[in-house]
């Protein structure tokens, strides 16, 4: 029997499962927003944790070149 034919024979109460829903209070949305904000913030910190050492390394690499260029100008 095909899946579509199967579904045609469902009838109540099985067919009602498709529309099953529960009422949700206002706190639900606020909590989801809070979780999203916390996770976004954590993501930003994580991003910083990666970029900060790279920036420091670039600065360290640039320092000898700048020092060398400064001496040449003198």
């Amino acid at each position, binding site marked *: 029997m095909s899946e579509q034919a199967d579904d045609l024979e469902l009838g109540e*109460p*099985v067919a009602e*499962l498709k*529309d099953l*829903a*529960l009422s949700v209070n206002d706190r*639900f*949305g606020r909590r989801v*927003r809070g979780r999203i904000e916390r996770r976004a913030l954590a993501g930003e910190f994580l991003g910083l944790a990666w970029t900060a050492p790279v920036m420091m390394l670039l600065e360290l690499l640039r320092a000898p070149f700048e020092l060398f260029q400064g001496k040449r100008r003198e």
Partner: protein
Amino acid sequence: MDSLDYESDDQLVNLARIERNGDSRPFEALMRRHQGFVVANCRVITRSAADAEDLAQEVFVKAFFGLRRFEGRAQFRTWLKRIKVNHCLNHLRRTQGAVMIELEDAGEGHKAMHTPPSAHAALQAAADHDRLISVLDAMSDTLRIPLMLRDGDGLSYEDIANELGLGLSAVKMRIKRAREDFRMRFAEAEQERGA
């Protein structure tokens, strides 16, 4: 009621993508529209109201961060269902060790896995959906979960077989049995309610 509540899912998804770091109203409108069914399905799969709310919140958080990857080939609701199914089944795997206990062949095994009907609890539920959930709560995981994946989430038999790590014929058999079991329990609950 927000004016965005009249927009289609597709329009809200596009707006939510554009406004990802600014206006959160499009995503909140999507959430308001679908939160009832996500919470209900999580509730049926986990049998716990507290877990269901927590899981449903996490489903929406995942949906929010995954919106960029949503290609729009399926409907938003279908995509959300996939996130929900994966998340709920992972939760069950973490908490119960395995999603499905092996089902014996027809006959004794089928009888043995029946939990005692909690028709009394079903009778106390006033609302239709609460009544359905009470009936579903009385069913075993082996039948309830495939039933919800098929008739609640609309997953194909193949997808359910993949999700649950079962053979196709086993899935078809379980869903057939689950529907019979659900109808029987529901009829019993209705009878007791009428009595």
